[in-house]
């Protein structure tokens, strides 16, 4: 028995028409979705984390499409916040910024709130979200009142960090000790790039 292209076309049309009324494909059988696996890899690699000095560099360079979201209370926000930040609750941010938004968003709050919010934003499809490591306290310690290690930072690096701190009205100090910043500033991730998951490319 030979099967003609017309028969195959008819079979495809029947299967396609049935698909339209068959409902959604079965949910994964207990296995985690790829999105969750990618997120787990991002958490392991600390891919969503931005240090206070890296965020300062970002804000100073004013790239297009960057939003800073303060998740703390209105009172805490009024007492002091990161320049250009807007105050929102996490639920407001999830509602406003739906999946596929092109903005790069950095969230922060008290202590680990930013990291928790980042996980939820990523699960909601916000691939370009980051969180400020250490929250507002880390911003104050790292940008507004940084202690810079003269022994472990090069003179150029030390000057660059001090200038960045002063740009935000900070008062950098030179000192040593466990709280002293000793790691080079480096560059923040590129605004617009998706952190955490490696880019997957189509192949032909």
């Amino acid at each position, binding site marked *: 028995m030979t099967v003609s292209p017309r028969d195959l076309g008819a079979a*495809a049309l029947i299967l396609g028409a049935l698909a339209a009324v068959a409902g959604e494909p079965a949910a994964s059988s207990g*296995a985690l979705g790829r999105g969750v696996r990618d997120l787990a890899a991002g958490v392991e690699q600390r891919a969503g984390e931005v240090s206070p000095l890296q965020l300062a560099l970002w804000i100073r360079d004013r790239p297009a499409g960057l939003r800073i979201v303060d998740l703390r209370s209105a009172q805490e926000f009024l007492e002091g916040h990161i320049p250009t930040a807007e105050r929102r609750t996490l639920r407001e941010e999830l509602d406003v910024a739906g999946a596929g938004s092109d903005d790069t968003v950095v969230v922060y709050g008290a202590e680990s709130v930013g990291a928790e919010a980042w996980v939820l934003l990523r699960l909601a499809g916000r*691939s370009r979200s980051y969180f400020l490591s250490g929250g507002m306290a880390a911003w104050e310690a790292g940008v507004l009142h940084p202690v810079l290690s003269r022994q472990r930072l090069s003179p150029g690096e030390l000057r660059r960090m001090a200038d960045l701190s002063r740009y935000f009205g900070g008062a950098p100090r030179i000192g040593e000790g466990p709280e002293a910043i000793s790691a080079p500033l480096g560059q923040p991730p590129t605004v617009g790039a998706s952190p955490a998951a490696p880019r*997957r490319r189509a192949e032909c």
Partner: protein
Amino acid sequence: MSAPIAFTADGPLWASLLGAVVIGLAFGAVLESAGLASARKLVGQFYLTDLTVLKTMFSAIVTALLGLFWLSRLGLLDLSRLAVPDTAIWPQAVGGCIFGLGFAVAGLCPGTSCVAAASGRVDGLLVVAGVFAGVLGTGLADAESRWFQWFYALGDRGALTLPALLHLPSGVVVFGVVAMALAAFQVAERVERRSR
């Protein structure tokens, strides 16, 4: 290299590579049997004299689409293990133009160039060399150039699927693509008949 389905996510690397080799050989055999190792046949696509490429590729898409949907609907395949390539609109638009230009000039695409090279054709070997040079150049530029990294992320929408983009159930999208393919086959047959 990533396989379309991460079927070896919990298994050893050799199983993944073996799977890639088997799938690659099957893909090449089908391309060869469809006559797509012939540059003349491929270029016929652009002159509207031979639309075998469109019919072969659309047949493959419809077969895979229906297979994935129904296997998943019947609980035999976990769709969440399917790798969806990221969509970055601008770099992919530019890449598509370069790809199309190379396709028209060489008369071969990456898959068919491997088939042509395997059958000993020099033009196939040259296209394969060009593909590897392009991949290497892109990888180096992506690693070294901040401008290139910026461009590569332009219009990045992450892993985007048609049901999510159109806000339609998967089955409706499947039916739409099948109907579109069948209509394309009809048009292709008519165009080929007219060109004879």
